[in-house]
Structures are given as structure tokens and as C-alpha cells.
């Protein structure tokens, strides 16, 4: 289908060029007490550095997962890439084009068409007053991809079948479906505009285990069939193991370690990655006598100076408490990883 409007001048991604490139991405939120308090108590506005200098790239057809606990900024990264927030700093390039400063409306539309998003909460991600067929058809209509009503109906029916539902389900409302089925509808909606990049924000966290398996299998099948690229956000390392080619571990707005999935699980280098792997309860390898690492995730409004992980890190030294580490390449078992850790750089661990 020909695109409406003027096509961007830059050619589409050359072979080998990543579909998504993110460099030094940052997003700060000003957190302010109500102005009366500020006036009387002299409280200054604080900066919540939700994302503080994140860089990664995803080649076409692959899956990058961002893992971390709540508050680490991984969801914010997804929303920045989706265009729901404007970055405070840094660049986002989709298909080679600057997604933050699009040159004109046609380019902006072109960029928007490349991506879609799947959300965590199956209840809140579908409009309860819309019929399923309208929900799925909305991206088609918004981008003007198909004009005729019968053609839209046909595509919607095809999408429903593709995600494992029946065409007649289009007539129903979201509340008539279970959580897993609603996620399938979300996936169908995301696919209807034929995007190339799918941002998945904890898509199975709210689902039961057996339903999760169905959805993850579906997502893998779709990726293979349609050559989709995934940015997969999750806090569950086991799920990420199943889905990702490459993994980035985030902590308090920064990336601690990035590596290919096999490398990360075989030889984690960053102390936080090791903590995460240690503490996940795995039914097949239960640690019944564990003495876990003490300490809490610090307040993101008041991050520790230097390396964000230093209060909980058994290897922290003075340099860690003063200087923020940068991502540097390091050997990890048989492969390589990018690790932001002084101890790793200094060869101490």
C-alpha cells in the first residue's frame, strides 16, 4: 500500500543497521512539593532521574530484553522509545531516523508506523467501551492503511485467528475475555498496523503461569513469521531467558550490564546481575538454605553518589562511592559483556 504524504529522504535501514538505536537516553522528572510547602518550607524541587544515560541498539529481527526491579526505569525507557515521553537528553533513532526531532509530519508518521506497544495490564490496555474489532482496527484506521470497510473486517478477522482467537470474538467487549485472551487482543491490535518494532512492557507479568507460556510461545512464533524486532521489558529473568537474544540489566536508571543471553546467564559479571540471579526462586533449583544479601533498593530521588549499587555491593571501594562507572567491554566466560563496574574493570572480580 503506498504511503500518504511525502516519504522521508533518507533510505530505509541499510542491511545490518540496527532498527532501534538509543544513545545516552535520559529522562528526568521534576518532583515538587505543593507550592505552599515550597513557599513556607523552602523545599527545592528534586529531580527524579528515572533514566540516566542509557544506550543500546537492536538489530532487525532480534530481541533485546531490559531487566530490572521496580523503579529501575525500564518501563520509562520503553515509553521514551514509544514517544509517550520526550527525552530530557539523548537520541533515539528508529530505522535510521531521529525519532525525537522528526523533520516533518510525513516522517513522524513513518516513524510512528514502525513501532507498536504491548502493555502489562490486560484490563487497562483495552478500552472497555469499545468492541474488540474496533480496538484492533484502530491502528489501521489511524494510519489510513486500508480504506474499505470489508477489507478492514477481513484483516481484523485474520489477525484474530492469527493470535488464537475466533473472528466472531470481534463482536464482543473486552470484559468478556480472560486476561490471557485480552493480551492476545492487545497483540492483534499491535500487529494490525504491521509494525517492525514491538515494545513489550511486562506483557506476561499479570498472567498465570500456564497462560504466560501460551502468550510467550505465540510471541516467539509471530517474531519468526513476521521478522519482528522486540524490546522486551521484564523483571522476570526466567521469562527473559526464554525470549531474549540480548539482555540489558538496569539499576536505578542506568545499565549495569549488557550481554548476549547465553553469556549473561553463564557468566554474569556485574554484582547486581549476580544478586538477581542468586535471588530468583527457581522451582527446579531451589535454594532452601539461602542467606540472601541484605539491603534495600535506594530511593531514586536520592541515589547514592558514584555507582548506584555501592551500598549493597560487597566489592565496593572508595572509587565506587565517588565515581560513576561507565559501560566497558569485559570478558564474560566464553563471550563478552559490557559492564559498568569498577571492580570488574580493575580485575577485582
Amino acid at each position, binding site marked *: 500500500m503506498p504511503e500518504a504524504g511525502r516519504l522521508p529522504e533518507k533510505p530505509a535501514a541499510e542491511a545490518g543497521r540496527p532498527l532501534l538505536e538509543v544513545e545516552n537516553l535520559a529522562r528526568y522528572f521534576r518532583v515538587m512539593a505543593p507550592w505552599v510547602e515550597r513557599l513556607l518550607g523552602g523545599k527545592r524541587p528534586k529531580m527524579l532521574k528515572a533514566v540516566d544515560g542509557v544506550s543500546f541498539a537492536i538489530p532487525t529481527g532480534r530481541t533485546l530484553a531490559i531487566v530490572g526491579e521496580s523503579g529501575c526505569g525500564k518501563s520509562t525507557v520503553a515509553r521514551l522509545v514509544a514517544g*509517550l515521553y520526550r527525552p530530557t537528553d539523548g537520541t533515539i533513532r528508529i530505522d535510521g531516523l531521529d525519532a525525537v526531532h522528526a523533520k516533518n509530519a510525513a516522517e513522524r508518521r513513518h516513524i510512528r508506523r514502525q513501532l507498536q506497544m504491548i502493555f502489562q495490564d490486560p484490563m*487497562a*490496555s483495552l*478500552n472497555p467501551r469499545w468492541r474488540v474489532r474496533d480496538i484492533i482496527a*484502530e491502528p489501521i484506521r*489511524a494510519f489510513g492503511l486500508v480504506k474499505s470497510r470489508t477489507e478492514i473486517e477481513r484483516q481484523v478477522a485474520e489477525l484474530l485467528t492469527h493470535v488464537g482467537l475466533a473472528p466472531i470474538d470481534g463482536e464482543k467487549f473486552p470484559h468478556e475475555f480472560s486476561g490471557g485472551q485480552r493480551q492476545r487482543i492487545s497483540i492483534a491490535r499491535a500487529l494490525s498496523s504491521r509494525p517492525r518494532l514491538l515494545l513489550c512492557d511486562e506483557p506476561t507479568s499479570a498472567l498465570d503461569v500456564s497462560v504466560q507460556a501460551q502468550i510467550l510461545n505465540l510471541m516467539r512464533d509471530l517474531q519468526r513469521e513476521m521478522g519482528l524486532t522486540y524490546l522486551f521489558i521484564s523483571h522476570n529473568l526466567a521469562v527473559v531467558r526464554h525470549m531474549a537474544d540480548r539482555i540489558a540489566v538496569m539499576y536505578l536508571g542506568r545499565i549495569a550490564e549488557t550481554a548476549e543471553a547465553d553469556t549473561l546467564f553463564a557468566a554474569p559479571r556485574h554484582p547486581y546481575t549476580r544478586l538477581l540471579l542468586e535471588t530468583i526462586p527457581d522451582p527446579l533449583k531451589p535454594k532452601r538454605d539461602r542467606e540472601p544479601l541484605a539491603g534495600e533498593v535506594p530511593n531514586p530521588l536520592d541515589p547514592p553518589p558514584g555507582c548506584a549499587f555501592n551500598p549493597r555491593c560487597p566489592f565496593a571501594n572508595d572509587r565506587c562511592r565517588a565515581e560513576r562507572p561507565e559501560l566497558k567491554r569485559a570478558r564474560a566466560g566464553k563471550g563478552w559483556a559490557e559492564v559498568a563496574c569498577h571492580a570488574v574493570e580493575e580485575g577485582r572480580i
Partner: protein
Amino acid sequence: MAARTALGRLFGRVRQSDLLWSFRSSKTTMVAGVVVGVMFLASFLAPWIAPQDPYDPASLSLSDAMKPPVFSDRGFWLCPGGYELREGACAEEAKGSWQFPLGTDDQGRDLLSTILYGTRLSLVVGFASIALAMVLGIGLGLLSGYAGGALDAFLMRVADVQLTIPAILIALTLDGIVRGIVSTQRHEEIALFVIVFSIGLSLWVQFARTVRGSVMVERTKDYVAAARIIGVSSGGIMLRHILPNTLGPVFVISTINLAVAIITEATLSFLGVGLPPTQPSLGTLIRVGNDYLFSGEWWITVMPGIALAVLILGVNLLGDWLRDALNPKLR
């Protein structure tokens, strides 16, 4: 064809819905529903079923004036020589009759007919002012809730100021201004609009606040984010996505406020700043009858009073039921 099946489906859904079941499970609500329904219907059909057209001077006759209701046996009757309670002379005229089942007023108007027409007018004013309040309230609530920030703060302050001015004051002020500007005859013609406008203006805030609250909740939901990602405009999101989700509570409020609007109009008419005597609503009737209350022709005030009370009570009960039925927590 498509319309018929859609209607059929809607009917089927209504039949099976929780709403209908909850309606039928409460006797009070059913009675209220029936009574209000009858009053609606009767007042709507007034031109056809009223025994007399009370606004047509030709159909009136002063000799019919002050007749008591049909069940009253001892009415006061204007006999030659003054008011007297008689058992004997003038007793024939003292009895009520089926010709005027609820009696007549001082002009010889049949009270039943007047009540029918008056209810009609009250309902028209009620619905119209609610409609105005809804449009204004929903529109401003949507804007306020979705935009947030300075616009929201400003609109909410306007709403606060609005709340300090009661409907009666607005109506008095507006009425006074209009009377000063236009001729009396013109004023009578547009009195209806003035009233509707005043009452609507006094009621929009509740709608706006409720809608704003709902909007602020809905706008954080992921389906709104999904729409923004594909580039749907803010207006599109507000109208097509968020608005349908805020209408539930609005429906409940409008039912309850209908009663408020009707009472307010009655009050205004009673005070003389409402509808003119040529278009009497229930409030006007009550006012007119007020003068005769203590001289014994009680029915001229009491009959429309009862009609008004029953209407308000019925609408209130329906509103209560609706609020409870639509409350997901009570289900």
C-alpha cells in the same frame, strides 16, 4: 435490517442485564418507576387527554370557578353574599363533580388539566436545564481533566465561584436584566430560556467535577497510551476513548439532578421570577393557590403540591436505585 438486528440485540441485552434484574428486585423502585412513568406519559399526552385546555380563555367560565375536588363534600362556595359554609343552600354547587375531578381554580380552570400541562412544563424545563448542564459540565470536565495544569486549575476555580452562587440568585439576576432589556411580552416569550439557562448554569459544576475525576483516572490507563502511540489527536482521545468511560456516573447524577432542577424551577415560579402566569408550571400553580389556602379553597395549592411532591419523590427514588445498581462495589 441492520438497525432492526441492532435494536433486537440491545433489547435482548437489556432483558438479560443486571440492571433490569436489580430494578425488578426492589418493590419501591418499581412503584416509583411506574408512577414516574405514568406522570411522564400523561403530561406528554396532555393536549389529547386533558379534559379542558386551561390556556384557552374561551373554554373557561367563571361560573366554574372555585369548585372543590370530586371527593370533597363540603367545599366552600361563593354564594351570593359572600363565602359561606353551607349544607343546604348552594350545597349543590358545593359538591365536587367528575367534570372537574380535582377542582378548579379562581379562573375556572380545571385543576387536573392545569396540573397535566404544568407537569409537562416542569419536565421540559427540568430536562432542558439538565441537558445544558450536561453539555457544559461534560465539556469543561473533559478539558480540565485531560489538559491538567494551569487550565485545570483555572476551570476549577471558576467552578468553585459558580458553586457559591445559588440558582435562585442567578435566576433573579438574569431575570432582572432581561426584564430591563426587553418588553414584557418578549420577556414572557423568552422566560423559558432564561429559566433553563439559569438552572443549567447552577448545575454544571457537579457534572464537570465528576467527569474531571473520571478523566484523570482514565487518562493514565494504557489504552489511552496505545492511542497516543499511533498518533490519535488529543481531541480524538477525549471524545472517542475517554468520554464513553465517564458517562456512568454522569447518568446517575443527571437523574438525581433532574429532581433538583424541577424543584428549583418550582421555587423560582413560586417566587414569581420563573415562568409567567400564562405558562403556569406546578410552581406557579402553587403560588396562585397560596392566596386561597387559608380562605378554604385548599385544593388549588395542595393538588399541584402533591403532584410535584410525587414527581420529585419518584425521580429521587429512581436516581437512588440507579446509583446503587450501577455501583460496581455493591454488586
